[in-house]
Each structure stands twice: as C-alpha cells, then as structure tokens.
C-alpha cells in the first residue's frame, strides 16, 4: 500500500503545472473560446512534443504505457488552466477504444499517429433517447457486400468537429438481422453521408451532433472482430470519468485558490470578507470538498484495471461524489465573489461552467448514485 507519487510522477506533475501556468492565461482562454476550432493546434503540437499524447498509449504502438494515475496527474493540471484541447476525445476515449478493440493493423495504423499529434479522434456514442444508458444504441450498421452502411443520430460528441476519424457505435445487423451486438466503427470525417453540426461546448471546447445518412464504410471500418463492444465502451467511459474527475479537481482547486484570495482582498464593513466566520467556514467546507474529490478521483484511477463491477462502482461513485462537490465548490465560488462572480469579466464563471459540464457529461450525480446502488445490489445478489 503506497499512495505517494513516484519521482517520475512528481516530474510529470511539475512539468504539466508549469506548462499550464505559463501557456494558459486568461487571454489564451478568451482567444480559443471565440475560435471556431475551440483550441490551439500549436498547443496540440506541444502536447505531442511533451509526450502527453503518447502518455497512456501502449508502448508497442508508440505510447509511453502510462497508467490512469499518470493520466489523472496530467488531467488535474489541465483543469487548473481550463485546457480546451481535444485530449479526452482523442487520447482518453478514442485511442483507448482502438487500443482495446482494434486489430493489430488498426492499432498500428492509428495509435502512433495519435502519439505524434497527426491524428485526432472522437467518440460518438450518446443518443438522445438513451439519456445516459450506455447499452441503448439505435444507430444501426448493416452489412453490405462491400462493407457497412451506417444510419442514425448521435449527440454530445466531444470535439467531433476537429476529429480526423470518429469512432461510432452502432448495432450490428448482418444477413440474419439484428445481432444484439454493438460494434465500433472507425468513420473518416470526410465520409459522404456523415453530417457534423458543431457548437461551442459549455465551459470551453466544442461538441457536435452527428447524423449518419446511410454512410458507406469499408469492411475494415469495424474495430476488431465484431464481438460485442459494450464492455469496452463501459470500460472506456469509466476510465474517462476517472480522468475527467481529476480534471474537475484541478478546476475546483483553482476556484478555491481564486476565491480564497478574493475574500482576503475584498473589503466590506471596513474589513476583509475573510474576517467573517461564516465566510471562513464556507471556504473550509470548499477546501474539504476539494480534498474529498481528490481522494475519489485517485480511487477511481487506482481501480480502472479492477474487475468490471468493482471498476464501474468506483467510477460511478467518483463521478457522483465529485459532481456533487463540484457543484458546491463552483456555486459557492460565485456566491463569495458576489455580483462580479456572475459576470463574464471574471473567469470564475468559465471555471464554474466547465464543472457543470463535467457533472452533466456521462450522467450527473443522481444517475451515478443510482448506478452505484444497482451495481452494489447485483454484487450482493450474485
């Protein structure tokens, strides 16, 4: 049992924090927020040079073989600067699914390019009717003589507008009809019949809705051998929730630091706000919740390779708890900044919005407490 960072992990944390502190200031964030791309290709290139795009990828395909804790260290630093590069879409979700489900050829074709920054990915899975149920997929993939024909709609695809390839989940239909299996298909962004409508995402970056109008794909667009991909999807989303949880911790820490500083400077009734016990106690509660969130993100990271039920419970527990902490810390940060907290003139609002986006993505606290409960009862009755 040891939860101390290794020397390598300490170095990673230092370099990530330094990079974010130096490159990610308010000006940079404003610029990218108004940019149709939503992030900086130059920064993406630097990510590649720093080895961050390769960090969690397998070593045999140009990766560094880092684990979920390493990923969490990086994501927490990203959170501190509200980084908007498509890291989660490309590396945490896209590359992970290819690494897990792809054939050797598919992995060889994609992963080294992700690592060197020349390939961006996205994962299109959520559908409106499914809400947060990962098993519910109406998009269909019909087997044709030449390959596959995909039809359906996807929503809330992170950074899909910037992706060279989009991994689309669809129910496989072969000549016998519905197979009951979900397949993952690698769709080139230029595929005819693929229509992307993107929008600025709450809290920074972009997302899109996707329509597939009988898009024709080659035979080898299907990742792997066509076995049911649902377990892989659940695995990838659990892992992404752990990583996003770490990012939320970074966001919360910045909000806490900023708010603490403000309450020391802002004077009312002839004394700093922080001289009031009610304010001090609120900040103590915020600090405590940041700490609890940090514990939960770490716990989820340490359990990503556990058995599926244990991993899923840890991920849902972390998502639910961090979401709850994030709302509290975010809302109280605005409250303690007073009227200024509600304006676009301070960055508190931008950080808050990213936290709300975190809580929403893949399902909010209520959804994940319920999933946690359901998984627990299954474990008990098993």
């Amino acid at each position: 049992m040891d939860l101390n960072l290794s020397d390598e992990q300490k170095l990673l944390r230092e370099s990530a924090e330094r990079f974010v502190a130096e490159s990610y200031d308010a000006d940079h964030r404003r610029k990218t927020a108004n940019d149709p791309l939503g992030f900086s290709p130059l920064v993406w290139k630097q990510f590649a040079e720093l080895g961050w795009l390769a960090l969690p990828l397998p070593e045999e395909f140009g990766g560094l073989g880092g684990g979920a804790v390493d990923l969490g260290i990086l994501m927490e630093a990203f959170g501190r600067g509200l980084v908007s590069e498509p890291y989660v879409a490309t590396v945490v979700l896209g590359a992970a699914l290819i690494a897990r489900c792809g054939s050797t050829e598919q992995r060889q074709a994609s992963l080294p390019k992700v690592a060197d920054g020349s390939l961006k990915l996205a994962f299109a899975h959520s559908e409106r009717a499914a809400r947060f149920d990962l098993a519910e997929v109406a998009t269909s993939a019909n087997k044709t003589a030449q390959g596959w024909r995909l039809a359906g709609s996807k929503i809330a695809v992170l950074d899909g507008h910037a992706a060279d390839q989009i991994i689309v989940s669809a129910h496989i239909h072969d000549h016998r009809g519905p197979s009951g299996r979900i397949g993952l298909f690698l769709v080139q962004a230029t595929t005819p019949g693929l229509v992307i409508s993107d929008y600025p995402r709450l809290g920074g970056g972009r997302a899109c809705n996707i329509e597939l109008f009988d898009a024709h794909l080659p035979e080898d667009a299907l990742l792997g051998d066509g076995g049911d991909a649902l377990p892989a999807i659940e695995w990838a989303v659990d892992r992404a929730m752990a990583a996003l949880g770490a990012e939320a911790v970074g966001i919360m820490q910045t909000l806490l630091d900023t708010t603490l500083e403000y309450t020391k400077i802002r004077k009312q009734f002839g004394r700093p706000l922080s001289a009031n016990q009610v304010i001090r106690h609120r900040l103590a509660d915020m600090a405590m919740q940041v700490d609890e969130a940090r514990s939960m993100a770490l716990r989820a990271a340490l359990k990503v390779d556990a058995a599926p039920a244990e991993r899923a419970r840890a991920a849902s527990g972390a998502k639910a708890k961090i979401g709850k902490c994030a709302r509290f810390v975010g809302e109280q940060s605005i409250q303690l900044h007073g009227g200024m907290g509600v304006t676009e003139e301070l960055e508190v609002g931008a950080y808050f919005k990213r936290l709300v986006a975190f809580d929403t993505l893949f399902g909010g606290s209520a959804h994940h407490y319920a999933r946690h409960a359901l998984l627990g009862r299954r474990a008990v009755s098993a």
Partner: protein
Amino acid sequence: MDLSFNAEERAFQDEVRGFIVKNLTEEMKRATALTPSVFSDPDIGMAWQRALHRQGWGAPGWPVEYGGPDWTPAQRWIFETECARAGVPNVNVMGVKMVGPVIIGFGSPEQKNFYLPRILSGEDYWCQGYSEPGSGSDLSSLKTRAVRDGDDYIINGTKIWTTHAHHANRMFALVRTSDRPRQQDGISFVLIDMKTPGITTRPILTIGGDHEVNQVFFDDVRVPVANRVGEEGKGWTYGKYLLEFERGSGIASAKLREGLKAIADLAESDLTGRAIDSPDIAARISEVEVDIDALEMTELRVLSALQTGQNPGAVSSILKLRNSEIRQAVTRLGADVIGHDALAVEPMRPLYKLNHEPAIPEEMLTVMPEYLNGRAYTIFGGTSEIQRDIIAKMMLGI
C-alpha cells in the same frame, strides 16, 4: 502507487485475523453489537484490552520501548480495519490513545514507569477532565483551580462530559495553576486518582438513554505535585497535542463501513419490509458508502504521507469532521430504514442483558439510541465549527 498490500502485509493481515478468531468471544461480539454508545462497558472492553496486551498489541501507536508493537502505518491500518470488520469491543481510548502518548512525550521517568504498564495491562481505567460547564469550545477559559500547598495541589472546581468517570480509577485533567494574561499559559496537566477524597461524580443520561458521561466535582482534592505532567503552565500545549491524537487517531472508515453494512443488511431484510426496494433508500445507502470511500482514501493518503515521515497537519481536522458527519448520516439512514420501529426506543441497559422481550427485533435495538446519542459526534472532541476554524486557519491561512 498501489492500493494493494504486499506479501508481508498480507501475512500480517492473516495474523491479525487469527488473533481475533482466537480471542473474540461470542459474548464480546454480541455485547459490542448491542452497545449504542461510543465505548464498550469496561468488563467487555478491558477483557479485549487484556487479550491485546497478552499478544503485545496493547498500544498500537506507542514507541516500541514503551511496549508498542512497532507497526508501520500500513500495519496499523490493517489492524484497525480487521478489528472493525470483526466487531471487536471498543477499548478505553482515554488510556492508550490519549493520556498514554502525553505521558510518553512529556512525563517524568517515574510517571512512565508507573502509569504506562498499567494502561497496557488494563489495570488502570482513565477518564478525561477537560470540558467544564462554562468552558466547552472555549476550553482555555477553564476555571477548575489547582492551588499549590507544599508538595500538593489543592483542586476545586468541576469537569463535565466526563466519559466513563463512573468506571475510571484515574483522570487526566487540565487545571488552572495561575492567572496569566494569556489564559492558555496558566493551565497545567495533572493526573488524579479518582479515589482521592473530595471527588464526587454525577451521572448524565444522554438522549438515547445511555449513561456514558458524567459531571465530576472537586472539593479540596489533594493531588501530589509529582502527578503534574511536564512543566507547570504548559498543560495547554500537552492537551492540544492529545487532542490532535484524538482527532487524527482516525482510521475510522472501516468502522463506518461496518456500521453502514449493518444498516444495509437491515434494509435488505424482511424485518424492514425490504426498505432497500425504495430507490430513495438505495441511492442514499450508495451516497453514504461513497462518502466512506472518500474518507478511506483520505485516510490512506495520510497514512502514505506518514510512511515517508511527512506531517499530515490540519488533515486531522478534516478526518474528524467528515468521520463525525458520516457517522451521523449512517445513523440517520438507520433511523429511516427501520421505519415505524423507530418509535420503540428500549430504555433498559445494557441491551445485551435485557431480562424482558424487547418490542422490536434485536437487530434494531441500537439504531435509534445510536441516532440520538450520535448527535454528539459533531460536538465532542472539538465541535464541527471549531474544526472548520482550524481548517480555515491551518490550511487556508485565514
């Protein structure tokens, strides 16, 4: 980073389990499960302390030269966790975890030689004389006075919330030995024999129906100056040192988990009409379980920091605060899970020796008393408000 235990630690875990199986009697287990207050009755708790002592485990946190087992933080974690899982009695922490470390840190050689072995063996049973009717959170305003008279102090005043004073043969107390401008500077730390003439004890019943705390009165009580620990006027420093132990001794998550498990078992039982089938109850169980997970991780992070010699600092306040809040959440959940049976609070004690058939199933007997008594969790050992003051000051610098 690694959450799992290495081979050595797993071997130790087996050793602890073996010890518990051999020494924990059914009687102790049942008595512990049916004790709705913080500490076991002395006959139960001290029997367990004697068993621990025979094994050389009487004082897990002490240095080895005073009889500690020289465990790593990970071993302490394993020990506490296994004890919680098995439901062992709660031993008198006022001796082992509170006054013991103060005597070790600041006591004279004579005091160490006399008191420490008697704490280990369970021969002495300690109580804590800190709070007074007029001095709760503002402890340093305490008024119980010790006036020097030759080789004795003569003590007058009163202490309150004194847990198990009615069982204890010794008390460690903070008393005022001078009126320095800074209140804290006039306080001394003394060890008192409870059989000394002039001491009387008044029981205080708590709202769950338990007699655990008392008020203690001192009427010209003579205590040898040799019973003062450390320097005169430094008692506040020693007392605070002890309070940090009281708050940070926390490997609390394992016990919380067992408490929640008992409630979840009730919720899944026909005794409660399967309360868990209500989605609201199921989600709340998960919510509390996740809070325990977070606390456990924080405890493990502190433990890891301790292993490398780092000081956890104000985190002990976070642990105390969250532990007490989650304990209350568990008891609140319990009260909801048992439904109408919450109305039948059994007044007789001890609950493991009732001479009549209780109105509700035995599994539920402690639920309401624990909920009611448990309101004290966020009050004793420094209220939640005081903990927030400490967090704001120590962690945030405000």
